């Protein structure tokens, strides 16, 4: 059976007054895959993720998540997706347990699941302490537990590794793996490209609000990990992709794309 596109953006744009944050972005993410959204600061990655998660309305174009229109079917989109942004979005006056129970109540999930997740993210020992006393890493873990609780089909992660130690990073990897295994789709924006690379099936590069290029071929061949980028971007970005592509020893040379970038395929 042909894989379904769970996340689709067509000509998506967003302006903040005179500032164009996102311009004419076309994107498709298939079920069971993870798209790494790369690009320098201010490229529009967060804006794109927030639009897809219905936190922000686009000023141009349309987008669908799991078949639901992000503009006209917001409540349906929110039932199937989860968004983890740079801020953990927790109430510091409440305990970790109360924060997670609140999330469980709003998502219609049993509190028993919340209890299991507190243990899974390693916070059961501090569950009854106010979140205001948590470290950044502990807050991020609690926010991850909230996303696990939602059991989303489409997952949007914005800088998910910030403040996390190695076990915390592994939790993010588990989360992505679980969503993909359920046949879901993940869109991941991060500057920690080395970590994200391992989890991703495709890469899209945004620069100045415009999608420079993305990887339809990776989606056509789910077993391949592929990267294509148009404008090579600033040296660290270019260097990363070159190293990643060549270092894997795929044996296939990089090729120049129509848009002046280079492309390659990882086995």
């Amino acid at each position, binding site marked *: 059976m042909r894989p379904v596109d769970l996340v689709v953006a067509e000509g998506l744009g967003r302006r903040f007054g005179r500032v164009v944050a996102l311009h004419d972005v076309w994107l498709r993410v298939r079920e069971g895959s993870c798209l790494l959204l790369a690009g320098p600061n201010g490229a529009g990655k967060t804006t794109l993720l927030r639009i897809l998660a219905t936190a922000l309305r686009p000023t141009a174009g349309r987008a669908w998540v799991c078949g639901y229109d992000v503009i006209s079917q917001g*409540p349906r989109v*929110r039932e199937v997706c989860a968004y983890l942004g740079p801020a953990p979005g927790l109430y*510091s006056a409440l305990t970790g347990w109360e924060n997670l129970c609140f999330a469980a*109540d*709003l998502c219609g999930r049993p509190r028993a699941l919340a209890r299991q997740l507190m243990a899974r993210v390693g916070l059961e020992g501090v569950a009854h302490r106010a979140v205001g006393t948590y470290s950044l890493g502990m807050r991020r873990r609690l926010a991850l537990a909230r996303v696990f609780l939602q059991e989303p089909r489409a997952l949007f992660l914005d800088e998910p590794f910030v403040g996390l130690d190695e076990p915390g990073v592994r939790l993010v990897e588990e989360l992505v793996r679980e969503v993909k295994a359920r046949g879901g789709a993940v869109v991941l924006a991060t500057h920690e490209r080395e970590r994200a690379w391992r989890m991703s099936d495709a890469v899209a590069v945004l620069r100045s609000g415009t999608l420079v290029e993305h990887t339809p071929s990776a989606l056509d061949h789910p077993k391949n990990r592929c990267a294509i980028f148009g404008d090579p971007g600033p040296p660290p970005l270019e260097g990363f992709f070159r190293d990643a592509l060549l270092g894997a020893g795929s044996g296939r040379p990089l090729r120049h794309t129509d848009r002046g970038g280079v492309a390659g395929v990882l086995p």
Partner: protein
Amino acid sequence: MGWRRVHAVARKDLLVEWRGRDGLLPAGGFGLAVLLVLGLVTGGSAEAAAAVLWVSVLLAAVLVVGRSTEREGEEGTLETLLLYPGSREELFWGKWLALAVLVAVLAAALWCGQVLLFNASPRGWAGLGLVVVLAAAGLGAVGTLFAALLHHVRAGRLLLPLLFLPTALPVLLAGIRLTEAASRGTPPEPWLGVLVVFDGLFLLVGPVLYEVVVEG
């Protein structure tokens, strides 16, 4: 409507307020100060008692509404709240319920303060209780709506009184007249009707408009 979600939001807001004590306590202190100043200016006259009480309640309510908005902004929790599954109308109802409870507590505390400070007559307290509930419901609805509207606006906290006070004028007038009527034992018409219509209007349009304004 999902009662579990409404209850969860209201409970959360009240719990955060209880733990932080940074909304109701300062607002209550401010309301008491206004009560004291206006009471002294009017010489603690029984005729002006109802007006003094409701002006104090309204001004203090502005602080409670402002603080509840500010808190969500400081912690960056509003976006997370908006991204939970389900309808945002339920978020409105939960926030309205919590705000109405806080305003009702504030009004009751200020009334007690007036009785203690100015030896005001506690007559008609049962009638006053009904007025407080209706006024709190109306102020809660207006406050929830404007808090959502101004959340995304720069200097929104400064604009809040400019929008909130004129809009809540019918509640102020009805509160004064109904409190006077309750203490004198006279019929509450037509001000009871004014208060009920005000509440009905804002509770009808509030949830619908909330969905639109909260996104910014």
